[in-house]
């Protein structure tokens, strides 16, 4: 026994090293599983407050940029209203609830250069934000909420290896999955687009609406490169993101009224 204690004491540095690295390893693996509830994140009040303080200074220097972006978005929405105005049927049921609602939030922290990027926003469970909700920027989708605290939330960015979103080619309706390849923060890959479908450089990619989280037809980006090797089952498509992630200052969290119903229905269906 005494020998054992002597041994442990003599090698305490190596033993502690092994234990600490093991803990780190477990944390790394756990935090990357999407289903796992994550408690250890920057939505923690103290962390988020510190981040807010430094972001506020940065925002001040980028007011012009933010104004310009908002003006552009306004113009885009006005055109949309103009277009839709002529097509709204006369007998719209005003009691039917809008299936999607938007909550505006400010970006408190945002990275784009890592392989697993996250965005911290200043709306949390107090404002109705829940894990799994979709987040969109002024020009295109941004990601999904991963964890929330009282007044902050962490969003898993589209620029993250672990994030997949169902997307479709707007012209044809053919769909695939978008996932970042970690190379450039303004390009993303469209995967699993079968080789029989038609795709051109310049096609618009939008959300497909198949997952009940994202409303259909939100902009994702524009197809820039298309490759199809002889033996491939799927196209290799590179999409230029319509949202510039490095300039993200305000985002909208999308609250889907039907998500829980669709989810529970799907669970019933998928049960054998």
């Amino acid at each position: 026994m005494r020998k054992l204690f002597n041994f442990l004491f003599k090698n305490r540095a190596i033993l502690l090293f092994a234990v600490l690295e093991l803990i780190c390893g477990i944390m790394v693996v756990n935090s990357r599983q999407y289903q796992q509830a994550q408690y250890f994140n920057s939505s923690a009040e103290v962390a988020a407050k510190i981040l807010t303080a430094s972001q506020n200074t940065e925002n001040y220097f980028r007011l012009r940029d933010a104004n310009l972006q908002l003006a552009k978005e306004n113009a885009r929405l006005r055109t949309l209203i103009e277009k839709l105005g002529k097509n709204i049927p006369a007998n719209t049921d005003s009691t039917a609830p809008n299936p999607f609602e938007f909550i505006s939030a400010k970006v408190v922290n945002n990275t784009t250069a890592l392989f697993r990027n996250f965005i911290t926003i200043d709306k949390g469970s107090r404002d109705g934000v829940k894990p799994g909700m979709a987040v969109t920027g002024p020009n295109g989708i941004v990601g999904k909420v991963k964890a929330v605290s009282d007044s902050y939330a962490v969003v898993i960015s589209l620029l993250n290896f672990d994030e997949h979103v169902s997307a479709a080619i707007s012209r044809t309706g053919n769909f695939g999955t978008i996932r970042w390849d970690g190379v450039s923060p303004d390009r993303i890959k469209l995967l699993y687009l079968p080789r029989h479908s038609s795709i051109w450089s310049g096609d618009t990619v939008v959300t497909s609406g198949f997952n009940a989280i994202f409303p259909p037809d939100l902009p994702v980006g524009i197809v820039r490169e298309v490759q199809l090797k002889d033996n491939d089952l799927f196209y290799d498509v590179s999409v230029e993101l319509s949202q510039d992630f490095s300039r993200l200052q305000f985002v909208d969290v999308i609250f889907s009224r039907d998500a829980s119903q669709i989810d529970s229905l799907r669970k019933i269906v998928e049960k054998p």
Partner: protein
Amino acid sequence: MTRSLVFIPVSFIVFLLLQVMLLQRIVLFDTAFCLAYAGFILFAPMEISTVVLMLMGFGFGLSLDLFQNSAGVHASATVLLAFVRNYWLEFISPQGGYDAAGADSYDAHGLVWLLTYVAPLLLIHHFILFYVEAGGFHMFWTTFGKVFFSFLFTLTVLLLYRLFTGSRR
């Protein structure tokens, strides 16, 4: 010892706030990160034991991970850095050993010694950090670019920091 008791918590907070509020936001060409927080371990007083240093590194790494949502990534790199540091210090010790004066003796042996002390440790730290973040070697060259350019960036910043603050003797 009493000096360390004040020095360590203060430098913990200073390095952490500096990293989170300023340095983390500076990324050159989407590849070069400034990870000057490694200075918290590198320039901690020489007499600190490896065990304490590792606990310091673990605490600091986890705090930083909290801000980046990267649970365990920074911590694993700082723990390794802390584990290796004292062995490396011993290995490159000048003849006659170190002056027992404390933290300031990092500047007492000249720039070449400082470079041989800092550079390999920093390289190890960056290597572990970026490959753990990538989750393996499947993006080897992209990740290697990040390791290399961040290494140059951080090294420059840390040496400048020592030049301006270190020569208080």
